[in-house]
Structure formats: structure tokens, C-alpha cells
């Protein structure tokens, strides 16, 4: 498979400056080493000065302005050198802010401050320290996304190893699984060395029947102990292959999956696990309810697009439960899939890495699935992740124990720390209210001085994040994703910290069918409460601003801006709870593929598809042609050496566009359709090609209008 065809997207494409930096990457002599040591010493003292040297308000503003101008100018230059430089810059200014916060804004010794002030202040500074730690670890994680490319399989087929493809399932509908099993069976691999195993904890006979029909191995176990982990461990007893590929039953692999991934296992004998991204071809609740599908990167893209790739540099990529291959010996060394926590996947890779095994990540979507359908489902899934990560943090903390490098520990730690965002996020959403409503002095410093120290920290972090994460997450969207989760993962994570057994927590959606639009007020309640509180705070602040004749105006304005920002974010969160009706049963994939149509009279015509789904296809004819509705024709998708013809009925004909519905298919026809939709190696590669670059301003504008739209909807529905 040609690598250039796959085209790995750059974090920030290299430029002239990176080329120059390459000149510094060769061998250095003794003089160079000596110079380096001296410079390092200077750098340490310089960093100390930048972090700790106190400046008066005016001079801090001057200093911050110069830093900002330099950073803005540098940000125009492409390349990783500048990315790293901006990370350093941002780290320095944030550290400077935190140092200032800790040393100059927490003096509560004056008796005028009471315990309310101190309580809010402790909450805020703890939240800020958390955010600072996560910021630093995030920079470490994304310092150099590895962007590993696949290793070609050797020409000699005899040395290709055997692989068992495992598809665990519990209660997913049959239809969802069928494509997965078909696609797994059709993966390009020597037939005698691949086995597809369907591990059914649902103990359904219809699944057994389907497996028999399709040629997959059906595995059922007597109990359901340890859920998915136990299911796989049970199946391992019946599997002898050197490698295990694991897919969730709704993750449909491409035919090329094994060829793309297996090469690395042959090259690196210590490689235990290779993960590929989880790609979703259907909109998640955010995308569907906000109408941003394929316009704004979804929640998972940052993780699979950047963080796992960044982890890979540090040999700290972890297993995500699906779309991955595991070396059997490594898995057996740690006693199979981990069963101690509810995130068995991450925990398993942590255990393997502690034994000295490597992990790898290839950032090429080689499988695709359906996103969670409802917001409630989405939250439920995240609660499980959060709780599981907190459990690992509690019982097998990556900072402790043997076998890991410091960078590995920090990368794992950050993945866990992320899920402790609940409390800090709520603190940030309410901190200005403490001042506006309760008059609590949460920061003992003049508002302008606070702004002069805090804004550089915020602006540089925002700018750097936009540069690094832009393609995978638009500015400020993290706030939305995190705010949605914060309320719900707060208690599960805290409880899991107290005792790993605690913290089971169930979220149920409002029991309305997906057939019509509705507002999931049950899920949205916490955001509505926070939103109302912020609005109250905002108006109390406004009255204070105008009622106190400008007294404390700077503090009030600062807190009003903060509250206003919170209102926008909470508005968007509330908007996500407007569950939108699902337009169609099957997902329609936009893809321009070669196909041939054959009319009843036998004339064949080469066409290009516009989109296709499991139910039908729309094609563009070379010339305008009107076909009566209901006409039965034949279509061959991806006609290679031999075409597979499928009957279809015309459902629409307009100009050169022809839409048709498939007639009931044979297995062979079905396999061809699955191949056309899901099985192509490049099926998901160009998914985000037409998306605009991240722009801080327009991203905020987008959020603002979404929040406003939500308010409008609430207003009209209240009226209605």
C-alpha cells in the first residue's frame, strides 16, 4: 500500500524554520556539549527570573505585550520548531501566573477576610493548579506527534503470522453486527491464518445462526463475569493465533486493516499492541443536535488525531478496546485483559508496558463505527471511562510501581487526570459568582494586576492550543465537551478514588423515542441550573456596576466578562440537549466511487457514486437522463476484475443524478456493498479534508450563535 496515498495529516507542516532546526540536530562535539551545559545553566536561571521576577502593573503589561506580539508573529510561521517554541513560551507565562497567584494573591491573613473567602479561594486555586498541571502534561504529550507510518508486509506469505479477530458483543442488534462480521471475514490476509470469532455474551441463537451463515466462529460462555474483559479472556482459551485483533461489534474494519497494522509487529518484536483510531461515520449527539456534523471536529478527534499520536512518541499509546491488534504472548504475560477496572483496555496496556512491552499507534482510520446516538448514551459511556480511569489511578497509579519511564508515567497520568476535570470545571463555572453574588474575595489582588498576569497565561495557552489542536478540536470546544461531562463524572471519579468499587452511576435518557425532536430536560438540568445562576450573577453584577458609582468597577467588569463567557458555554451545553430526530435509519456515506449501471435493455454506463448506504446508492451519470421511478436496474459497485451486480429500484431521477434502493441481496452482493462502503483502505482518510482551519474568533462566534440559538429555541418552545 502506497504511503503517500494514505497521506498523514501534519500537525503543522514543516517549513523553512524546521529545515534550519535540522542543522542543529546532528552530532555535537565536546565544545558543543560544554556550550550546551552553560546555556542550560543560563536557561535555568532565566526561567527562574521569568517565573518569579515581580513587575509592577505597568511593567507587567509592557512585558506581556511584548511576549504576545512576539508569539503572534512567530505563530505565522509553520513548522514544529515554532510549535515547540510557543509551548515553551506558554509554559513560562503560565508558570509565571501560577507563581504570582501562589505568592501574591492568597494573603488571607488580614482579619477582614472570612472563611467564605478562604473557602472559595482554596477552591479556585486548587482548580487552577489542576488546570496548570494538565496544561503542562498536555504539552508533554503533544510535543512531537510521532505520525508513525505502516510497515509493509514481507513478500513471502509464509512468514505472515496468524491472527484471530475477536468481536465481543452483549446486546447490540444483529443488523449492526452483520457488516462488521462480513468486513472482518473479508480482510486481506491468508485465509488459513485468520479466524473471526464472535464472542456473544448475549447468548443469542440468531447470532450463532448468522455466524454459521457467514463463516465466523461463535463463542459463548457460561457466565458474564468481568463483562467484555472476561469475554475476551474466555475466548483466548479457544484461540491459538499469535495475534488477536479486537473490534467492537459496531466497528467495521477495512480490508486493509491487518496489512496496515501487522507490519510493525514483525519489525518490532517487543511490540505488544498497536492501536488505530476509532472513526465514526455517523454524527455524535453534539454533531447531530448542534448541526455541526463534519463542520466541527468531534470530541474524539483530539484524542485519536493528536494525543494518541503524541503518546506514541513516548511509547505510551494505550489500548482503547477496539480497532487494535495485540500480541498474544504479551497479553498472556499480564494474565489476559485486565479485569480489575471498568476501563480494561487502558489498564491492560499499562500492565503490558510495565512489563517492558512497547505499544504503537497508526493514525490511519482502518475501521469505522456508529457514534453514540443520544446525549445520555454519550454521557453514560464517558462516566464509565472516567470511573475506570479513576480506578486505575487509585489501584495501579502510573506514577508508582516499576517498569515505566517518566514520560510514560506522565502520559498515562494525564489521561487519567483529564477525567478529574469535574470539580475544577464547576469551580471555574461558579467562581465569578462567588464574587458577584456573595462578595467573596476569591483573589486578593487588584483586578487589573490579576488581569495583567492571568491574560498572558490564558491567551498564550489558547493560541498554542489552537495551533497544535486546531485540526482536531476548534478553539473553546473543549470547554463545551468538558462542561457537559463535568457534572456527571464528578461523583463517579471521586467515589472511585475513595474506593474503586464505588461510583457506579447510571444515566438514563428521557424515555422518548428518537422519532421526533425533544428536549432532554433530565440530562440538561445541571446545565440549566448553572446557566440560571450565571445569568443571575451577570445581572447582579450589572446592577452593582451601575449602582455603586464605579466602585470596584475593574473587578466587577472582569467577573462580568468571565460570567458572560460561562453563559455562552453553558448555553451551548444546553443546546446539545435538544435531541434531534434521526433522519434516516441507515447512515449515508458521501463517497465518489466508480460504478457501473446496467439498464434493463442491457446498456451499461460507467457512473460515479455521490453517496451510498446499506439501503441504496446515488450516482451521477455522465449525461442527463430521466429514468422513471421504480424502474429496476442493476448496479455494480467498484467493478474490478469481475463486477458484482446488484438489483436496485430507482427512487429519484433528476438531471444526471440517479438514486436507487437496493433489492434484497445475496451474501456475495452484500459483501461487495460492505466493501464499497466500509472496506476500502482509504474509506475514511479524507473525512476532514473539506473542513476549515481553526480560527479563534470564528470558533467563538459559532459557539455564541449556538448558545443564542438554544436560548431562542427555549423561548419559542416555552411559548409553544
Amino acid at each position, binding site marked *: 500500500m502506497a504511503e503517500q496515498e494514505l497521506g498523514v495529516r501534519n500537525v503543522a507542516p514543516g517549513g523553512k524554520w524546521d529545515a534550519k532546526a535540522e542543522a*542543529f540536530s546532528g552530532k555535537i562535539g565536546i565544545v558543543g556539549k560544554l556550550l550546551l551545559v552553560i546555556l542550560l545553566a543560563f536557561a535555568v536561571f*532565566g526561567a527562574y527570573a521569568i517565573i518569579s*521576577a515581580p513587575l509592577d502593573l505597568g511593567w507587567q503589561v509592557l512585558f506581556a505585550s511584548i*511576549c504576545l506580539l512576539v508569539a503572534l508573529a512567530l505563530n505565522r510561521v509553520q513548522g*514544529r520548531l515554532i510549535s515547540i*517554541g510557543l509551548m515553551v513560551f506558554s509554559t513560562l507565562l503560565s508558570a509565571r501566573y501560577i507563581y504570582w497567584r501562589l505568592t501574591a494573591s492568597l494573603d488571607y491573613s488580614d482579619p477582614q477576610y472570612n472563611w467564605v473567602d478562604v473557602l472559595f479561594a482554596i477552591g479556585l486555586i486548587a482548580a487552577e493548579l489542576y488546570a496548570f498541571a494538565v496544561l503542562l502534561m498536555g504539552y508533554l504529550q503533544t510535543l512531537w506527534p510521532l505520525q508513525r507510518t505502516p510497515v509493509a508486509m514481507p513478500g513471502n506469505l509464509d512468514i505472515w503470522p496468524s491472527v484471530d479477530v475477536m468481536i465481543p458483543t452483549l446486546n447490540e442488534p444483529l443488523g449492526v453486527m452483520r457488516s462488521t462480521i462480513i468486513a472482518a471475514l473479508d480482510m486481506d490476509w491468508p485465509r488459513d491464518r485468520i479466524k473471526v470469532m464472535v464472542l456473544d455474551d448475549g447468548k443469542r441463537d440468531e447470532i450463532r445462526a448468522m455466524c454459521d451463515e457467514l463463516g465466523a466462529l461463535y463463542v459463548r460462555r457460561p457466565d458474564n463475569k468481568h463483562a467484555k474483559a472476561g469475554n475476551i479472556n474466555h475466548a483466548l482459551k479457544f484461540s491459538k493465533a499469535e495475534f488477536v485483533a479486537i473490534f467492537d461489534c459496531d466497528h467495521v474494519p477495512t480490508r486493509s486493516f491487518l496489512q496496515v497494522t501487522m507490519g510493525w509487529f514483525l519489525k518490532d518484536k*517487543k511490540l505488544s499492541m498497536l492501536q488505530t483510531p476509532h472513526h465514526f461515520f455517523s454524527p455524535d449527539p453534539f454533531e447531530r443536535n448542534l448541526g455541526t456534523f463534519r463542520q466541527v471536529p468531534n470530541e474524539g478527534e483530539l484524542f485519536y488525531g493528536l494525543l494518541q499520536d503524541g503518546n506514541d512518541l513516548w511509547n505510551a499509546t494505550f489500548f482503547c478496546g477496539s480497532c487494535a491488534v495485540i500480541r498474544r504472548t504479551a497479553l498472556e504475560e499480564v494474565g489476559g485483559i485486565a479485569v480489575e477496572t471498568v476501563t480494561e483496555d487502558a489498564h491492560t496496556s499499562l500492565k503490558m508496558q510495565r512489563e517492558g512491552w512497547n505499544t504503537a499507534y497508526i493514525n490511519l482510520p482502518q475501521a469505522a463505527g456508529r457514534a453514540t446516538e443520544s446525549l445520555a448514551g454519550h454521557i453514560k459511556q464517558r462516566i464509565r471511562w472516567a470511573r475506570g480511569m479513576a480506578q486505575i489511578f487509585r489501584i495501579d497509579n502510573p506514577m508508582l510501581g516499576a517498569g515505566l519511564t517518566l514520560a510514560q508515567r506522565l502520559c498515562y497520568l494525564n489521561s487519567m487526570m483529564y477525567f478529574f476535570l469535574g470539580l475544577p470545571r464547576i469551580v471555574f463555572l461558579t467562581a465569578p459568582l462567588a464574587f458577584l453574588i456573595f462578595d467573596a474575595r476569591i483573589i486578593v489582588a487588584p483586578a487589573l494586576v490579576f488581569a495583567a498576569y492571568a491574560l498572558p497565561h490564558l491567551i498564550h495557552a489558547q493560541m498554542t492550543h489552537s495551533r497544535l489542536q486546531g485540526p482536531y478540536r476548534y478553539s473553546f470546544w473543549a470547554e463545551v465537551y468538558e462542561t457537559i461531562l463535568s457534572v456527571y463524572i464528578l461523583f463517579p471519579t471521586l467515589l472511585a478514588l475513595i474506593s474503586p468499587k464505588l461510583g457506579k452511576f447510571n444515566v438514563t435518557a428521557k424515555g422518548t423515542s428518537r422519532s421526533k425532536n425533544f428536549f432532554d430536560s433530565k440530562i440538561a438540568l445541571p446545565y440549566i441550573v448553572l446557566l440560571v445562576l450565571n445569568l443571575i450573577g451577570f445581572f447582579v453584577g450589572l446592577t452593582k456596576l451601575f449602582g455603586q458609582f464605579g466602585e470596584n468597577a475593574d473587578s466587577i467588569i472582569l467577573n462580568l466578562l468571565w460570567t458572560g463567557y460561562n453563559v455562552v458555554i453553558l448555553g451551548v451545553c444546553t443546546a446539545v440537549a435538544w435531541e434531534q430526530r434521526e433522519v434516516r435509519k441507515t447512515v449515508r456515506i458521501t463517497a465518489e466511487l466508480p460504478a457501473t449501471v446496467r439498464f434493463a435493455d442491457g446498456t451499461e454506463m460507467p457512473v460515479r457514486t455521490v453517496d451510498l448506504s446499506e439501503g441504496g446508492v446515488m450516482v451521477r451519470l455522465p449525461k442527463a437522463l430521466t429514468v422513471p421511478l421504480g424502474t429496476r436496474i442493476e448496479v455494480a459497485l467498484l467493478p474490478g476484475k469481475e463486477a458484482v451486480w446488484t438489483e436496485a429500484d430507482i427512487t429519484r431521477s433528476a438531471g444526471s443524478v440517479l438514486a436507487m434502493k437496493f433489492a434484497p441481496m445475496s451474501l456475495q452482493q452484500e459483501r461487495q456493498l460492505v466493501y464499497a462502503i466500509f472496506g476500502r483502505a482509504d474509506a475514511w482518510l479524507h473525512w476532514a479534508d473539506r473542513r476549515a482551519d481553526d480560527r479563534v474568533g470564528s470558533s467563538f462566534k459559532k459557539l455564541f450563535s449556538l448558545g443564542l440559538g438554544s436560548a431562542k429555541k427555549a423561548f419559542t418552545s416555552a411559548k409553544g
Partner: protein
Amino acid sequence: MMIRNKRNWLRTPALAGISAFWSALAAVAASGSASAQLPAAPAGASSDSAVTELAGRREFTLKDIGASQPVRLRGIEHQINFPVAIRGDEIVTGARLHLRYAHSPALVFEWSHITVLVNDEVVGNVQLKPETVDGGEQVIDIDPRTLVGYSKLGLRAVLHYTRDCEDPAHTTLWSVIANDSRLVLDVERVPLPNDLANLPAPFFDAHDSSRLVLPFVLPAEPSAEELESAAIVASWFGAMAEYRGAEFPVHLGRLPASGNAVAVATRERLGPALAVGSAHGAQLAVINNPDDESGKVLVVTGDDATSLHAAARALTLASGTLTGRSTQIANLTVPALREAYDAPRWVPTDRPVKLSERVGAEQLQVRGQYPDAIRVPWDLPPDLFYWRSKGAKFDIGYRYTPTPGTKSTLDLDVNNQFARALPLLMYDAPQKLDEKLKKKLEIPLVAKREQYRVPVYKFASDNELKWQYNFEIRKKGECEDVPEAYLRGSIDADSTIDLSGLPHYSYLPDLKLFTDGAFPFSKYADLSQTVAVLPTKPSAEEATTFLNVMGHIGDATGYPTTRIRVSDASGLNGANKDADLLVFGTPASQPLYSQWAELLPATLSEKGSRLQLVGGIERLRARFEGRDLDGAREHATKIIVEAGDKLATIMSFESPLSSKRTVVAFAALSGERLQALSTLLGDPGRRHFVGGDLTVLNVDKVSHYELAPQYSVGKLPLLLGIRWWFAQQPLMLAVMAVLLAAFSALLLYRLMRNLAISRNEGRS
């Protein structure tokens, strides 16, 4: 507070006791001064009014002996004491108190009176009458025999407003005694025997709270060693004089017509009038002033520089061991060099210091419903660097009689700035008592200890810590109120204050540091790093100025300037180059002023004095630092022109002979004006106006300017130094940030790239 109960550097028990006596009385006298009902004595008529006369009459106002404000006596009975001290060589033959007073009109007059006491014996009474409500005056004769040595003048008011039950805190119970009320004494001189054992009396008598004026007699053309020895003696007297101030008018080659004097000369230059026998070597003697029966002359002499110095050192460092009319000093060894910052006057800053090291325990106790403040002097080296310091660690134990209420407090002021208040609660017993028991017991005394930090911005070089007990007055109702005279409060003598860890770092030139703490010369208390540059043949005024400055330095350090070097301009070579310099003289007599004309902030000349020109870079820098250089120059020029030939200046700049060394120059157009500069240093009213790198005295107005760039002396710890430097340099901080980001980016790029290559090759 007029009498600053400052310091007792002399460790001899007798003197320490005397000093404590003064302090205690002074503290007593300072109380009871609330609002002024009678006009206060005019400012400026203070210390100077207590002029020493050889014999005859002495007059003190209450203001001179401690009442900075009119004395307010309130309540049914209230007494305030003032210290009165009689010189050891005087006896009182007659004494009168001219009392001016006023009082409340709402009194029962036959029961209300003011009693005058001396040493707690009644010497007179003043009956309060309706006629004296708006002010009365009465002369009270005092038995002169009661006034010997240290005495206590007491004023007690007994006031009543009703014949029935009284509220002792009733607001009508007040009387005020003017602080210009005078105590007039007729004195007679009783000369002391000529005995070195009396030293420092009669040349300095601690009983005498007036300014010390002690003439020095030097040969007509004093040599360097004679000037050095005179300086040692002058600084010793200056240190003892403390708050009184000291002047040492120099008589070249002649004795003063009357009174006491100190003569310093090598033996062959003493002259016949001061011949003290044919002894050899270092010698000290007390003889009669040949021109005045009652005057004494202290003769300090020796054969050569070594023995003359030894005589001066013996006088100043071992005066307690001297006896007889005359004594030979056998021990010629030079005492070891003093360490930096070990001046006895300064509180050590390398360890926690107990209060008992600085004041006596008796000064830490007070009593009464309205107790006096507890005052502790806490002088510090002037160059302490307080920036970003966490504060001084106070570990203070205190005891008090608990009052039933909850509003009693113990307040701490540092330099009259409020620093901390502690509540004095009823049941804070030292041991844990059963709650019920606590309520039954009237605990007679509560002892507590607390640790806290006091922000260092409240500190200067010359500090006073003041603890004030405020006892709540408990209202019980008529006929039940009792003045709570049993109330007591104290600060534990083993309480400590810790200023350790503060670096020594300051920016010079800054004449403020010189007036406040004689810095940088005082860094080594023996002045081993100082050279005084006098004209080759100094005039009497120039020598006087020099000795007055030495007196000032002695006062600042509490130690005689035993290693001062005196030189003329031509002697500034060799070891003398690497020293801080004190320069004295007029443009005519001091050649350094023309040699260093470029460096001086101002050039003095009969034809017209002018300021030094300032370069463009310096102007830019001043603008950047926010100093109005042009405004200052304009003002200074005006003052200089106004002053004409009365111009006198103190200037300070970095020594051209050695970097980081400081020159302080006293320059005037005439000797008389030069001398005026040195008296300025001892004048508490005007010394605040000395500062900057140029202080100008025109006729009697003092103003100061910062015209030249400063340089730093001292050393900061590395990390603090980095922060301090960058805190002044926001631009450099930004440049640093960019450079650091660039360097780190290149380094990380290299590391990450190589790591990525190795990962992509399948190595781990």
C-alpha cells in the same frame, strides 16, 4: 516622645542602670498626654531652652523633660511623674515650679486639687477654684535638698464632681497642665576631684539632658595621629551623648577661657599649660583648667602615634579601669578588627534576638488603668534589603491581669505604624483549666506566647517598637466602680524578634543612610575601612566639623572610631585608596574639590557655584526611572544662587580611587558654614532633610537632590539577585523569555526529532 530612651551600649552596671532610669522616667512622662487644652509650648523652644550655665540658674519646661504635649490628668486620681536629674558637679540651692494649669468647671472645688510631689513627698498643693477654670498659674517652692541626682517630679490630680457616688471615669474629671510649666533651679558648682575614676564626668554627665558641648584642644597644626586620637575620643562622647547631641568646638593651640575641655596632643606639643609630668608613653590625666578654677581638662597624650592612639583607646574602651589624676597606659596592643555589621548599637540580624538583650526587664512592665506604652528601641543596619521579605518573626510572650470584658487589647506599633493587636481575654490561662473552674476563678494573671510576622516595610534603620496595653474600663454602676489600679501588663524579656536572612544590599550614594546610620562608614564600627581627608593644615572650624561628624558616627554605631585614618589629599595612596572617604574643607583648603571637580554633584566657588552637567544617557535613564531630573536641577540651581557665599553642601559619590567605595564630602565656602553642616546631623528637626547625593544648606534651609546615578553595594543571594535585577528590567525579562523559548525549542526539536527517528526504527 522627646527623650528617646534609646540605647545603653556601655555595659558597666552603673551606667546601664542610669540609662534604664532615664528610660523608665521618660516613659512615665510620655503618658497622659491626650488633647491639648492649653496652648502647647512653641515648637523649637524645646531642647535649646535647657541651656547649661556654668553655675547659677537652670530652667526646664515640662516639655524638656518629657511632656511633648500638655499633660492631661483625668479620673478621680491620676499621677504622672517626670524625671529631674542634677549633674554630679552641681548642687541645688533653690527650686521653684511655675505651674500653669486649667481644669474642668464642673468640679466640687473644695475637694479637688493638684498635688506636687518630689520623690513621692508632697512639696505643695494647688487648690482648684472656679477662677482658675480657664487657666491658673502658681509658683510652688520646692525644698532644694530633695533634688539630688535622679529625682522624680510628680503631679497628681485629685478630682471630684459630686459628693455622692462617683463614676471614676466620668468625663468631667479632667485637668490639664501646660507643658511649658517651668522648673527653675538655682545651682552651685561643686567641682569634682581630679580623678579619672569619675570619667566620663565631669566632661559628660548622663544626668544632664542638654546638648553636650565639649571643646577640644589641639596643637596649632594638628598632625594626623592627633586628629585620629581626637576623633576616637569625640566619637566616644558622641556615642554617650545619644539623643542629646554633641558638639566638639576645636581650639587650636589655646585653651578655652572657661569650662571643661579635652586636650589631645603628643607630649612635646602639649605646651606648658597642660604639662602633665615627665612620664613617657601613653598617658591620660585630668587637670584643672588653668584659666578657670571650676573647669577641668582631660589630657590625652603620648610620645608618638602609637602611644597617642593607645591613650585614646584606653580612654574609650577601658575607662572603667582608670583611676587617679593621671595614669600611664601600659597596654599598647591594638584591639582586633571589628567584623562587618557588629556595631553595638545595631541589633544582630544573623539570629533571633531577645528583648532582654536590648532593654532591662523593668522597662517591659506597666501598670494602671491607663498604662504607659512599653517602648523598645530596635536599631538595624541601614543597608538591610527588605524587598520581598516575608517579614520579621516575632515570638512574643506577654502577661496581663485579665479584665472581665472582651475589649482589652495589646497593640503593637512599629515606628508609630500600627502592626498588630492581640485580644486580652479573661480566661486564657496558661494551663488547661476545667471550664467550670475557670468561671469560678478570678485568674490573677494570664501568660501567653504568640508567633507572628510583622511586615518589614514598617522597619527602617532607627526603629521603635511600642507595645500598648489597653485595658477595658468596666462599667458596674454608681458607687460600684473602682479604678482598676491593680491592672498590670508586661512583655516577657525572653521574647525574640528574628530578622535573620535579610541580605545587606543598598544603593549609594544616599546621604539618608549616612544621616540615619553613618552608612557606609559604620559597616565596620571601628571605621577600619574609612579615611578622613582633611586639609593639610585644617582650620579650627574644619577640625570641629570633622570631630562633630565623628561624634555623629559614634552615636550611630555606639563604638569609638578606633581605626579611623586621617590623611590629606596627598596621602590618598596605597592602602588609603581602597577605603570609604570622608572629605572636609573649603574649595580653598581642600585640593580634592578641584581634582575631582568632574565627579562632584556641585562645584563650589566664590565666583559662583554650579551644578555638575548631566549627560544625555543619564537624562534618559532618569526619565525611565521616573525621576524629574530637570526639575530637581532647576530647584537646586535656584537654592545655590540664593545661598551665595553662605552655600554649604554635603555631597556623596562613588570614589574614583576604588569602585563601590563611597565619598561623603562636607564642602562650604567658609569654615563657619562648614561647621553649620556638621551640627545639622545632630539636629533632630532638620536631619530628615538630608539625603540624596547632594544636600544643600542655604542660610538655614536644607534641601536634597538625587542627580547622579546610583551604584549598588553589598551582595544579594543569587536567586534573589536575579529576581531583583529582572524586576527592574521588564524589557530584559521579555528578551530573556524569547531567548529561552528559542533555545528550548531548538534543544527540544533536536531531542524529539532524534527520539522520533529511533521510535520509527522500531527501537525503544
